């Protein structure tokens, strides 16, 4: 019996060995390199990074934009997932197509489409003036708001689908039971429906947040070089400045945030899973 089980475990070897060599090992080497100088172990690069006010501003902006993007996506995705779970026939098709079809439009073209919309003479400004909401064009391109809207648009399906997966399997009897026991709509939502759907919310939010802290193409097309993000700093130090130690340090900082998100969200998902 053990022999057969061991043979099955061996099937995981090719894939795991691949990821160990072509993914985990390079990342570990990057981390090692960022604390290594000619003289040996040193945190000097990190001290220099965190001592620079400009870097701290970029770090803060990156986190803020990612958090706002996640919140906006969640606010749109949560009700949408519920409507999708009740939708039938052609309506369901419309929702599903809207989730998947935009993925065929590359992120470069999508971000560019948003930059067209946000231009001073772009569609949004022209419409606003036509309705009479503003007289002069509103400056939208190059702003953080534009970036958050564009990013939420790109990541939205990755927020909706995990929540939809959970809502679809939600036992309709539970909210109904709460009602028959005299629960009002608010009590029922906050004490029954929301806790049951939280695993989907955590999965979608973690995924959206980790993609948003590391996005590069969307900010470079919507806000440009004026408002850097961590990813843009990394790209700049490697591709233009040729400053590899700096690039490695920023990469390590970004990696640390991403690993924290993964560990924290999977811990949270396990706890929520244990409760239900």
């Amino acid at each position, binding site marked *: 019996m053990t022999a057969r*089980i061991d043979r099955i475990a061996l*099937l995981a070897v090719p894939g795991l060995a691949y990821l160990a060599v072509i993914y985990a090992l390079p990342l570990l080497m990057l981390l090692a390199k960022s604390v290594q100088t000619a003289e040996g172990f040193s945190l000097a690069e990190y001290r220099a990074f965190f001592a620079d006010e400009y870097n701290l501003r970029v770090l803060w902006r990156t986190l803020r934009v990612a958090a706002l993007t996640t919140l906006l996506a969640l606010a749109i995705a949560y009700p949408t997932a519920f409507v999708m779970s009740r939708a039938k026939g052609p309506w369901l098709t419309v929702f599903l197509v809207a989730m998947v079809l935009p993925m065929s439009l590359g992120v470069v073209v999508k971000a560019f489409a948003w930059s067209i919309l946000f231009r001073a003479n772009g569609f949004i400004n022209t419409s606003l003036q036509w309705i009479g909401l503003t007289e002069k064009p509103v400056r939208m391109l190059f702003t953080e708001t534009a970036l958050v809207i564009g990013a939420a648009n790109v990541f939205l399906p990755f927020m909706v*689908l995990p929540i939809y997966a959970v809502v679809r399997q939600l036992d309709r009897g539970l909210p109904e039971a709460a009602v028959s026991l005299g629960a009002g709509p608010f009590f029922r939502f906050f004490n029954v429906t929301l806790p049951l759907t939280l695993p989907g919310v955590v999965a979608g939010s973690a995924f959206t947040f*980790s993609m948003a802290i590391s996005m590069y193409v969307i900010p470079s097309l919507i806000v440009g070089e004026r408002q850097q993000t961590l990813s843009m700093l990394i790209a700049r130090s490697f591709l233009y400045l040729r400053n590899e130690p700096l690039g490695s340090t920023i990469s390590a900082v970004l990696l640390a945030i991403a690993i924290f998100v993964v560990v924290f969200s999977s811990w949270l998902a396990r706890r929520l899973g244990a409760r239900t």
Partner: protein
Amino acid sequence: MTQTDRIFRTLSWIVALGCVVFLMLPIFITVAASFSASPVYTLPPPEWSLRWYASLERRSGLWDAVVLSLNLAFVSTLISLVLGTLASIAVTRGNFRGREAIATFAVSPLMMPGLVVGVALLQFFREIGLRDAYVSLLLGHIVITLPFVMRTLLASMAQFDFSMIDAARTLGLSYPKAILKVLVPSLAPAYLTSGLFAFLASMDNYPISIFLTDARNKTLPIKMLQYLEEQPDPSLAAMSSGLILLAILVLVFGARTVGLNRMIQG
């Protein structure tokens, strides 16, 4: 149903319909711009024309990028499907410690910053002396496609009744044959879904690829961004519209064969 319920339901529908419009907006803009007669992106276009579709013929650099990206996406997805199937069987059926950890590890590249993975691979490949851009790109793209495949296959295999494999073996099939003839066909929707998402993720990857390309091997997103910086005319919109049309055909095929909902949920 109370008054409050009705209000919430109406609000939810408004948000959901807004969501659909919001998601489809970039597609409408791109398709509208592709039929524009103007060399700059103005909406709505002053006049309609097919000139940017005709101009695609001359953009040989773009076509090279399309071919390279399709090639990378196809080969890396195929390799991931094989590696992913084996690893998923081990995690689902194996009886050893650390199976949870393996699953988390295999899916984790999805949540790692692409640029950081790209930088790490660049330094690693330089260290081991790998200079070939195509091989570097392919190795990097498997890191992107494998987690998509693993995520869907792990979920689907958890629901697969493995006693069917045992039945097939009792009837005389070897274990590999039983996997190929029983497991793979019954997980067809999962293969279609994960393959499609992996393929699209590879086609669309910028942050890892940017560090692994050379002058001759530029993938589509890299070429597109460069093109937008140099001459932002609507040829790109025309080409993207072509790719959207292709995606619609794939979706129609998927909806006909396995059903859209099953396809999207794996």
